[in-house]
């Protein structure tokens, strides 16, 4: 495995959970698949469509998101919104991430 490949793999693992957290926090205001994808990428969460769409379904199935079809516009879209359980999950994840960041800051300095 080359160095860049290894870096890619490790970065992917490091970021895996952060997309979930970002979705839960962004969807406090209702959003739909593609719009959310754009916003995530604009905010610096590199996400692919084929990971985001299944992720939204999973979070909905777990009860962390609720959904509703919006047929007002020409293209009907499924809008997701973070549920109460989702909010609690987001708080827990945010707290934990802050703890991890603090722990990393406390590590010995890099060369």
């Amino acid at each position, binding site marked *: 495995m080359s160095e860049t490949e290894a870096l890619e793999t490790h970065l992917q693992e490091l970021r895996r959970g952060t997309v979930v957290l970002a979705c839960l926090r962004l969807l406090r205001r209702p959003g739909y698949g593609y719009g959310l994808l754009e916003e995530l990428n604009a905010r610096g969460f590199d996400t692919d469509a084929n990971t985001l769409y299944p992720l939204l379904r999973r979070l909905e199935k777990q009860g962390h998101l609720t959904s509703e079809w919006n047929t007002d516009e020409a293209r009907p*879209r499924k809008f997701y919104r973070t549920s109460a359980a989702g909010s609690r999950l987001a708080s827990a994840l945010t707290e934990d991430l802050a703890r991890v960041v603090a722990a990393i800051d406390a590590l010995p300095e890099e060369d």
Partner: protein
Amino acid sequence: MNATLTDRYIDAAMRTVPEKQRPDLSAELRASIGDQIDARTDAGEPHETAERAVLTELGDPDKLAAGYTDRPLHLIGPRYYLDWWRLLKLLLWIVPVCAAFGIALGQTLAGATFGEVVGTTVAGIIGVVVHLFFWVTLVFAILERSPGDGARKRNAQSKEEPWPQWTLDRLPEPRESGARLPDLIASLVFLVLGAAAILWDLLIGFVPGTDLSFLNPGLWPWWIAGLFVVMALEAVLAFLVYRAGRWTVGLAVANAVLAVVVAVPALWLLTQGLLLNPEFFPTLVPDDGAEVAQIIVVLTGFGIAVIALWDIIDAFLKARRAG
């Protein structure tokens, strides 16, 4: 109108999605694809290339569908892999050996030639191994896909396993070296009892009221004397193993030589009809004596071969463990 690439993509993705989720999922997927295509055409791309680019980026529709429905994309995942492998190894140690023994014994009793026995046994072993792999793997693949599994898989703390969790108690015990004092005593007692049984059989007989021996009385005295010499050597070997404190490759080789020196002449005598007393069964079972004698000959032959083989392998295994 011809189906568009998008239609075909959605059809392909929905094939493996459960019926009742299909309308909702396909509508959402269609909207998402439409949004993505629009974003590209708004930037000036022609519709056709935009559609191709978006669908290519979404990737294999079956993989996408698996993500939607939480279906595993592996036959046996990390949760079951070790249990699958342990069970398979255990069965592969036990079942083919038993099957080979049973097939060979059955074939021999049925009067098959040596070539037929070997051919049927080898074919049988191959069949048994293939079946073991297939059925064990099938059961675990179904387990991997059993209902409610998806929810549990995401919950890494779940204790709901179909079998007990691994605990420290399951660490393997240190193996017996086979070279302690109890092993030496057992070997010596076994040899003395064996020699006594042979003498008793030939001189007095185990069947009350007759002087019939199970072994051929013609083996006395020289064949039996030869056997006793080998048994004495085995006693010496047992003592050497005890003194060395462990089995070594050299001792295992010596053990193998002794086992062969006993088993090969015994099997030769058996096939020549010289090992067992030809009078024994015809006298005890007047009606079917010859047939019973034939079966006993085959069973004895297998018994001698299996015991010798096991004795040889066991010593080498202990030597390897100790080394």
